[in-house]
């Protein structure tokens, strides 16, 4: 089995598992929609206010939704021994993790992206800002998942693992949030969102390269 084989093995495995646990996907989506709809209730239905906070709210809700799903990335596999089996298989661990991350993006981030246009409508965002919002989420969500994988692997097996993971993750998520929501804001202000998107893209490339090997190292420590 080559590296590519290991990646596709993990993608197929985790997608199949996700299909058996559709409730988990729906929980995350439900949280996303509900978190977004809390804000209009709290601050009132003034159109221009909603328009102003919309992108930021959608970004924060997407970020929290992904963080809600991330502790499961390695926890189940750790508990039932399949993570040990993966490490002991002698296959490149980074490739197996890369596959898991791709699957995690497909089952958690992609549905959020699909729902975003509806929420943008609810916040009365102009249609012209939708491509930038979606683009920023498309570039930013892999970063969120990659960082979450590293912290999740580090906090694996600890009693307060999920909480610790949240505390480790959130500060690292700040730049993603700033540039993600900032892209939409820049466009609304009549500026080019390209600088923000380019930085997000650079972050994505860095995380795509670094997250699998770093998470693999952290996992090897955690399974001891």
């Amino acid at each position, binding site marked *: 089995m080559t590296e590519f084989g290991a990646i596709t093995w993990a993608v197929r495995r985790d997608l199949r598992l996700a299909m058996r646990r559709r409730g988990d996907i729906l929980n995350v989506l439900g949280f996303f929609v509900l978190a977004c709809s809390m804000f209009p209730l709290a601050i009132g239905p003034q159109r221009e206010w909603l328009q102003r906070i919309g992108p930021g709210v959608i970004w924060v809700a997407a970020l929290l939704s992904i963080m809600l799903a991330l502790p499961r990335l390695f926890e189940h596999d750790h508990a*039932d*021994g399949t993570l*040990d089996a*993966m490490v*002991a*298989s002698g*296959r490149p661990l980074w490739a197996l993790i890369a596959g898991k991350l791709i699957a995690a993006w497909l089952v958690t981030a992609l549905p959020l992206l699909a729902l975003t246009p509806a929420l943008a409508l609810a916040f009365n965002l102009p249609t012209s800002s939708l491509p930038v919002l979606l683009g920023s989420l498309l570039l930013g969500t892999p970063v969120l998942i990659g960082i979450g994988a590293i912290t999740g692997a580090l906090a694996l097996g600890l009693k307060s693992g999920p909480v610790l993971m949240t505390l480790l993750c959130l500060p690292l998520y700040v730049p993603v949030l700033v540039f993600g929501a900032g892209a939409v804001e820049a466009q609304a202000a009549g500026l080019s969102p390209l600088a923000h998107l380019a930085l997000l893209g650079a972050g994505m490339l860095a995380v795509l390269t670094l997250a699998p090997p770093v998470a693999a190292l952290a996992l090897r420590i955690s399974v001891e």
Partner: protein
Amino acid sequence: MSLGGTPIGPGAFGGLKASSLALIRGERTLFTDLSFDLASGELLRLLGPNGSGKSSLLRALLGLTPLARGQLLAGPAGRRLTPREVCAQTLYQGHAHGTKGELTAIENLALAAELDDSLAGSEVTRVLDAALDEVGLVRQRHIETRRLSQGQKQRLNLARFAIGLQVANRPLWLMDEPSAALDASGLAVLEGLLGRHLARGGAAIVATHLPIAPTQGKARELHLEPFAPRRVREGLAERAP
């Protein structure tokens, strides 16, 4: 229908030698200066009371738990093996069952065998069915494994080893309590698989409390002694009475 076995030549597995292994878990020293040899066609029964470090030794051989000292060599006078190299030639069954409860028996088996790289060729379904048949799970093949009993899950693990017999890529079997929860006929399946594996030139280390007797091949025993626990108090290490 029974699966055949692929012979393992001396080129694929020339034995394993462990010299002066030491393992420390937290404040406990599980063993120091543990040495053993394992030749092709041999089974090493790992015996010892609970907590003597049988599972930890198996994990340490694979690098899942770091060894404090010692090394693994390929053959009696071979070169030093890295944990990654040991993993690549090993079929390991750990203490946990290592199956996903949401997936069916055959799905779990297919995924495990693909990860082992023991499912080659176009006859995948036939091989999977034959392996499940051999361990007596063919009627449960489409049942989610969370609905299987402990013994049936253990049999599902054996099916993975039955498939492993087909290829020569993993000559070393490491099994942690494979007989736990198995009934008499399950134990016979395990002993038959081990026998065929030894007969084809493979080797195995099995942590067990039962006198597992492979149908063919040689079996030896390695006793792990309960090591006097060392306690660390106020920075000073002292031996417990």
